[in-house]
């Protein structure tokens, strides 16, 4: 179950999915992969949800000290944050060296709102790391995930690993995934408050949304994030989206939700996921938003662009996802 870098392809992005159906298979798939990397002298990072992280840590024993362990349920809650905040940060810290990463962005319990952003992230990895010396294996829990998630994994990964071994994916087609999942977001509820902001009313829009956030109980820290996030989204609309943005704000059971719609179209699929030095102004704003919200979803097309952000409502009865 170990993955072997192919000779003569030093800068190749190696991106297998690893399908596991038990805790034992998880460790059989991940531990040798990690140990091979350590044996090669490669920097190794493991970014997986907490329960799996604990199992990996225990199985590695003292070897865990040489591995960067990241709780993906926290660091990757918003999938748009994973490339810039976790993966590029780690890869860029080791220039000129192959790095080895286990990344598990999709697990049972990801919500319907989160899932499309997770798949988009998996597809975008192939663009973000194309030609880079990165080996990244993505574990998939085949017993806990539905068939759609497994079929999507076959489209976002060029190589698949399971009990039977390692094989090329016949269904590899990340562009199709990006097209398929770039679909209009569900409509805002009728209860949503809708306003328009332009150059002259941007500040008022910021105050309005922040006041709404305060009225639904966001923390002081979240209000700062909300204020910045809505400003950046509307600034992009004003600069790139026809001079104004329509924003809507509401709450669902667990979140304050705010979306900004404009008539612009985003053409860079990695916007908001490139490191700051590789981002223009629009990208910097979205990079910031990606890192401070609990989820960002986006739809862009000839009719315009909608960016929707979610901030978790503080709620004592809210249980963390399983």
């Amino acid at each position, binding site marked *: 179950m170990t993955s072997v870098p192919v000779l003569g392809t030093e800068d190749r992005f190696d991106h297998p999915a690893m399908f596991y159906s038990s805790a034992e298979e998880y460790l059989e798939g991940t531990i040798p992969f990690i140990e091979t990397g350590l044996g090669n002298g490669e920097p190794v990072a493991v970014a997986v949800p907490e329960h799996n992280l604990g199992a990996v840590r225990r199985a590695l024993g003292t070897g865990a000290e040489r591995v960067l362990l990241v709780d993906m349920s926290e660091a990757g809650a918003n999938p748009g944050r994973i490339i810039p905040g976790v993966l590029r940060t780690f890869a860029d810290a080791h220039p000129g060296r192959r790095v080895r990463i286990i990344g598990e962005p999709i697990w049972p319990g990801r919500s319907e709102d989160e899932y499309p952003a997770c798949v988009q992230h998996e597809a975008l990895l192939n663009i973000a790391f194309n030609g880079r010396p990165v080996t990244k294996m993505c574990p998939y829990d085949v017993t806990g995930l539905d068939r759609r998630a497994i079929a999507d994994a076959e489209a976002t990964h060029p190589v698949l690993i399971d009990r039977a071994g390692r094989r090329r994916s016949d269904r590899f087609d990340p562009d199709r995934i990006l097209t398929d999942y770039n679909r209009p977001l569900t409509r805002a509820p009728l209860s949503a408050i809708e306003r*328009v902001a332009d150059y002259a009313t941007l*500040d*008022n829009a910021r105050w309005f949304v922040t*006041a709404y956030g305060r009225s639904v109980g966001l923390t002081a820290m979240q209000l700062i994030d909300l204020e910045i996030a809505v400003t950046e989204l509307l600034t992009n609309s004003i600069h790139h989206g026809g001079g104004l943005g329509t924003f809507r704000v509401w709450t669902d059971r667990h979140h304050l939700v705010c979306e900004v719609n404009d008539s612009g179209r985003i053409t860079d699929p990695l916007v908001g996921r490139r490191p700051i030095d590789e981002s223009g102004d629009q990208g910097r*704003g979205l*990079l910031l938003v990606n890192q401070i919200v609990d989820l960002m979803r986006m739809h862009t097309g000839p009719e315009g662009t909608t960016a929707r952000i979610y901030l978790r409502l503080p709620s004592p009865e809210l249980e963390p996802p399983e």
Partner: protein
Amino acid sequence: MAEHAVGSRSGPRAPAQVVHPPSAEASRSDGPLRIAECGVGLRVAGEIDLNGHEVWERALRRTTERGGEVRLDLSELAFIDVHGTALLVDLAAALPEDRRVVVRGAPAGLHRVMEVLWPGGTTAITFEGEQ
């Protein structure tokens, strides 16, 4: 202290007709962007967003061109966006090695943007006071 106003918000602002805060306790900032030269730096009040970028950049340039340490009093600044922060970071980074920007009273949002987008910090900017 003699102060010389070097800028205000460029262009008139339409009164708030499109959006209205839902309640009187909505946190309106204390007015438009105001930048005053004071001593070896600037005192900034209000909010910096796309309406204030030009004025902010011009004031920063003028004060960094004078040489020596640059002191920014941001204790009356209620908000600064990513581009406004980037202007400060870029200008500070372009200073010669022996010079720096000392920021006092930065709003929480500035710290937040810096921590997320420039997590390593920047040696050319020193924060003084709270936080």
